[in-house]
């Protein structure tokens, strides 16, 4: 109890509240503007946190995460352009409602359902995370390897519906993790005669490149008017009535838990949850007409993901989605290693984070509710100015981590790689997440073999390992089945078009 009170006292200091307001504001802006994502927002703000204490730094980034997830609905509803991929489902009913003069109501419903689901996901995180962390203390190198392997394979599997492409993208990322000093014997590998590569590829510079540069290239090279629809009308948030809330409450709870569950599975994330939420909404309304449920369902689901995705990241060190992968990197930069020991050695930090998550949700509720007109003006801002500035911020961010100019080259290399991956239809997220998961995967794999003196049976001795291998097979088999069904469906549709 004293920890909880202490956490709230810490979080409610003026400095922390200002940090949360800043994070939430940046998050809503990045979420609202099409093409900018909250992952990009987190990564661009990360260099600003280097001089901050760990809790303050993570709070700022969590503000961007939650603000971004919630703010994505603004452009979905008002412009019919999803602000983030997670808000694509919100667009389906939100934009038609907006055209029928119900923009305020749709925005209010999106906001209330987002905050409700977000808070529910935080509550779930607070209950589930300590249990998972306690259980994870029993893990040895073989079990940790099986867990990381599970995380990695699901990340690759659940990516744009094409398992093979996801796996290729993920293994390309793994290949890059082999650059530099090997984690067990300390020998230099794959430096290609470049001295700076001895310490490996800088994770943050690589992430900045992968997430931001392809978007910069893309937006600079398209006609920006295609992403710009001017909103001249005055918009205000209208919250749903009690009767409407009562009608949608069951749906919101259901979709929030769908989001939490999806978020807790490594590599899934908001877009899948949001479409499942939309599906639930349509089942409830039983008609194709746009309805508030079609906004509440996806928004509850995608915000449920936030707390869910933090569970594996904090307890096991496995990111649930790209945003939590960056948060994981941020924790490491601040000397905090996510995993079960984080809960015993830095309990004050964990409780501080819980308190910050709750307060951030309330700040986002107030900020987006009352400041909607400001965010509408932000939508009218020229994309060319934004993306040119982002290019400059990327170079500052990648340089500032180690004060090393070579990291800017790493960022550009990763950016070009990311662009070509996207161009060829390969998901970028598995490559980035593989960079996070690769080192622990190799380290635990080799440590387990050293412990067993080269006996591979160690990987199959523990029921925990078996559980994760079976879960891997189960998830991958499901994805392969979906891929095959989609390929068949795609062929049919392609044939029809021809």
């Amino acid at each position, binding site marked *: 109890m004293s920890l909880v009170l202490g956490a709230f006292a810490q979080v409610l200091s003026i400095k922390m509240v200002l940090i949360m307001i800043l994070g939430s504001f940046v998050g809503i802006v990045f979420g609202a503007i*099409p093409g900018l994502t909250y992952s990009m927002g987190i990564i661009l703000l990360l260099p600003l946190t280097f*001089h901050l204490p760990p809790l303050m730094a993570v709070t700022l980034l969590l503000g961007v995460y939650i603000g971004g997830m919630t703010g994505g609905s603004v452009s979905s509803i008002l412009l*019919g*352009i*999803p602000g983030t991929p997670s808000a*694509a489902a919100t*667009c389906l009913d939100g934009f038609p409602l907006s055209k029928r003069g119900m923009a305020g109501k749709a925005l209010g419903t999106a906001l209330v359902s987002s905050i409700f689901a977000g808070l529910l996901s935080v509550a779930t995180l607070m209950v589930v995370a300590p249990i998972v962390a306690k259980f994870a203390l029993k893990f040895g190198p073989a079990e940790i390897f099986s867990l990381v392997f599970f995380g990695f394979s699901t990340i690759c599997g659940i990516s744009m*519906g*094409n398992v*093979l492409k996801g796996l*290729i993208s993920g*293994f*390309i990322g793994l*290949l890059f993790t082999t650059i530099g000093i090997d984690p067990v*014997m300390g*020998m230099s*590998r*794959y430096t290609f005669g470049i001295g700076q590569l001895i310490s490996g590829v800088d994770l943050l510079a690589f992430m900045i490149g992968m997430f931001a*540069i392809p978007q*910069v*290239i*893309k*937006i*600079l*090279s*398209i*006609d*920006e*008017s*295609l992403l710009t*629809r001017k909103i001249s009308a005055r918009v205000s948030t209208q919250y749903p009535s009690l009767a409407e809330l009562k009608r949608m409450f069951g749906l919101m709870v259901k979709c929030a838990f769908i989001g939490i569950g999806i978020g807790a599975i490594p590599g899934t994330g908001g877009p*899948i949850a949001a*479409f*499942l939420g*939309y*599906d639930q909404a349509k089942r409830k309304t039983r008609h194709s007409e746009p309805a508030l449920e079609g906004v509440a369902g996806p928004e509850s689901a995608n915000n449920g993901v936030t707390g869910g995705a933090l569970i594996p990241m904090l307890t096991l060190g496995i990111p649930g989605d790209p945003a939590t992968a960056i948060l994981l990197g941020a924790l490491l930069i601040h000397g905090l290693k996510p995993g079960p020991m984080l809960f015993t050695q830095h309990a004050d930090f964990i409780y501080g984070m819980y308190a910050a998550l709750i307060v951030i949700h309330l700040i986002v509720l107030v900020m987006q509710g009352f400041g909607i007109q400001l965010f509408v003006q932000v939508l009218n801002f020229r994309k060319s*100015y934004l*993306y*040119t*500035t982002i*290019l*400059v911020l990327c*170079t*500052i961010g990648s340089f*500032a981590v180690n004060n090393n*100019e070579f990291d*800017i080259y790493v960022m*550009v290399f990763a950016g*070009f790689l990311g662009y070509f991956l996207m161009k*060829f*239809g*390969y998901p970028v997220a598995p490559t980035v997440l593989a960079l996070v998961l690769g080192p622990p995967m190799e380290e635990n794999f*080799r440590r387990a*073999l*050293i412990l067993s003196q*080269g006996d591979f049976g160690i990987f199959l001795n523990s029921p925990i390992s078996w559980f994760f291998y079976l879960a891997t097979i189960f998830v991958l088999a499901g994805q392969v089945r979906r891929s095959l*069904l989609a390929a068949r469906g*795609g*062929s049919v549709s*392609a044939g029809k078009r021809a």
Partner: protein
Amino acid sequence: MKKDRYFSVLVLGLCVFWFLNSRSIPPATMPGAPGPKFFPYLVMGCLAVFAFLQFALSFRHPKETVPPSTSVPIRPFSASEGTGEEEIEEASGGCVDPDDLVPDRRSLIASFLLILFYVVGIDLVGFYPATIPAVFFGLFIAVKGKTPWYRLALPTALITAAIYGVFTLALQVNLPAGKLF
């Protein structure tokens, strides 16, 4: 699909390149334990198998596939066919997916070159001397001739000044100085 075929050949080439660079890595020092080459070999092997599978599948599935990210289809707005003008007219009725928008080839090449020159420029002449022209040409590429070049000077100055204010004056972040000066 041809794209997948080319990409899988590139990935196979990457595996070969990695393999050739593995020869200089020393072997394991502990008997029975895998050495520093083991994990890279494992990754290379798996990647090569996946790339080969992709290569083979590219002959089997010439038809277009649709990613099954959801059971609920997003309301159709395909910008991959037709010109920009048709797209915006169509878009006014439905949802736009930013990922569907087709880039202009000349602007695309210019964007790549801009980033390359910017990075090399930072390395050679330092952060601010490289940033000012990079911002200007970035805006120039983005506006695609719809705004006269002299009207881009003010936003260039404002963006650079804002960055100087935040990072150099307020946060006192060390920025690259450049090798030439």
